[in-house]
């Protein structure tokens, strides 16, 4: 089931990725109850429901990540953040913007410091925004070139407002002067 030679963008670089993403709505898992989803050995990103149902068994493993759907709440993981090396947030469509607030809250409100990965319909033109709210890893849609997507991270050099990446707005970071004539 694991994809061969899979790569993602992480911390501004293209790297090999060995995490397996378990999606319950795919194939045989579709009708399985969260408690019954079988979690293979190795590094696995499990759906939130499966994590909550099997937490006791999974807690002993250091190679489990959890992914949130766009309508799930980040607070559901608030007691687990310290032991999760990876949390992923799904973008069913890139225009579903809930994942941005989920990421912001995970980082800024709940203090999550591990890998925060955008999965699903993740495309180049959203990478700048995604990085700003706290994502540091991007599982770009499989039909797109990672090399192209990487450029999306640097579309803008100026950030007016606070977010996860900038703790202060531009006017507190720099001395702004009058008109540039």
């Amino acid at each position, binding site marked *: 089931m694991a994809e061969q030679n899979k790569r993602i963008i992480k911390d501004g670089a293209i790297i090999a990725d060995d995490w397996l993403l378990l999606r319950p709505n795919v194939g045989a898992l579709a009708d399985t109850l969260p408690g019954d989803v079988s979690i293979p050995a190795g590094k696995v990103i499990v759906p939130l429901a499966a994590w909550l149902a099997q937490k006791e068994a999974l807690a002993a493993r250091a190679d489990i990540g959890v992914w949130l759907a766009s309508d799930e709440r980040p607070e559901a993981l608030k007691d687990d953040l310290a032991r999760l090396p990876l949390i992923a947030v799904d973008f069913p469509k890139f*225009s579903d913007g809930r994942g941005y607030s989920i990421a912001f809250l995970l980082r800024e409100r709940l203090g999550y410091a591990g890998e925060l990965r955008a999965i699903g319909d993740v495309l180049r033109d959203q990478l700048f925004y995604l990085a700003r709210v706290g994502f540091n890893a991007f599982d770009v849609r499989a039909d797109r070139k990672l090399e192209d997507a990487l450029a999306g991270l640097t579309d803008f050099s100026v950030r007016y407002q606070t977010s996860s990446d900038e703790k202060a*707005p531009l006017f507190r970071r720099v001395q*702004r002067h009058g008109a540039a004539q």
Partner: protein
Amino acid sequence: MYRYDQYDQTIVDERVAQFRDQVRRRLADELTEEEFRPLRLQNGLYHQRHAYMLRIAIPYGLLSATQLRTLAQIAREHDRGYGHFTTRQNIQFNWVKLEETPAILERLAGVQMHAIQTSGNCIRNITSDQYAGVAADEIVDPRPYAEILRQWSTFQPEFAFLPRKFKFAINGAQEDRAVTAAHDIGLTVIKNETGEVGFRVMVGGGLGRTPIIGSVIREFLPWPHVMTYLEAVIRVYNQYGRRDNMYKARIKILVKAIGSEEFAQEVEQEWQHLKDGPGTLTIEELQRVAAHFTAPAYETLSDNDAAIAQLQQENKAFANWLARNVKPHRIPGYRAVVLSLKKPGVPPGDISAEQMETVATLAERYSFGELRVTHEQNLVLADVRQRDLFELWQQVKAAGLATPNIGLLTDIVCCPGGDYCALANAKSIPIALAITERFDNLDYLHDIGEIELNLSGCINACAHHHVGNIGILGVDKDGSEWYQVSLGGSQGNQTTIGKIIGPAFSAEQMPDVVERLVEVYLRERNDEEKFIDTVRRLGIEPFKAQVYGTPIEPKAIKVGEPTRG
């Protein structure tokens, strides 16, 4: 007005580069149309019936003469020699080629303009009072706050893909001239008992399919908190606004569903995490931005120019123009002058490249090189010396911009409608032109007095028909175009949603329908009573009786002829 510093300029330049590459990828088929659509919309580029339409932001309606000249050049080189001012104080070009948009944006960036977030499900251009800074009834000049919020909302990363579009309006005067109650967020800048400046915050107003007047969720928000508080509002909306049905996705539906008190509490809880944090506005930044909006070098003048008073006596056409198109100013000897874009025979809000150049020159000559766009789709020279009015009038008249109809029946607010817009159910411009033609007698028009007539070609209500004293909505019935009429809507401090009077009419009946409504008013009005006041006093029944009492013969109007734009 606000001038970019290096940071503002950099972000706009980088946007041009980003969009140029997005267009390149679309043309090379590296982006599908479905993927490109939200990207181009966030840059104001729509695909319409005939061509692309580019909507350019005019932040809070403020323009310099130089910027207007650039718009004139764009109109000539990339459109058919025209531009169209919108009800959100922006300008649209209706005949743009996709391949040319990067060049247009580059040209705009050269004069500190852009098309950022003029469409899409994000925070849109912020609108404001066209008389900001000059109005006699102003409490606080809203423009510095509007600019600060423009910067805050520009590429705000978390709120680029909201459930639906998100519109701010900000007003700082006694009279609400920004339709704040019909916006997702309506801010009123006020002072509290101790003289401290802050905002009354309304949320959840909007027109469209479900017209709702906004609810006040905070009576007084001290100014330093404006950004953190709005961040809390929009974060709540981004998480809980509906995404399953685009017709129920605006914040008004969420506020209505959970109640404005519950919504206010949710916002309050979220805000507690942000309040007094680094997102708080500083006095230094407020002063830096406000320094761009200081008063121009006004002369000390008498407020009663004898020569102008004399000309007013002698020249009826000039007197009509003074009565309708010249507005009070807080400085003695100065006036704000409205240039009418509602000339009979011309689509409301349309302006030619030549007219733009003339207006730019007049702005430089008579109004410190600046002008404003109104949400009623007219232009304003805000700082004209009273003694220059006659001279100015002659030039404005020669340019075809002196129709003395501001606030009158023919000052129709009208969307582009079915002639251009892919969303429209019906045409709107030909109906507006036919009504204007019917009321071509100026004495009659002035006798009727103030009436706001708003005409939208579909339920999205770009022409704000719900708040028109007479609101006209184009609807589709079995493949043909019909017009539903509502009565009693109003903007301002008593914003109300009009009531539908009954079954819809054909385009050909509409001039008669409006005429019958006016007849009832003329028959029933008390002295000095405006149309809206008569409607409020009598209700819609007598109007209904007159309109539906006898059949209306359809009279041919020029529908379907190509209109410019």
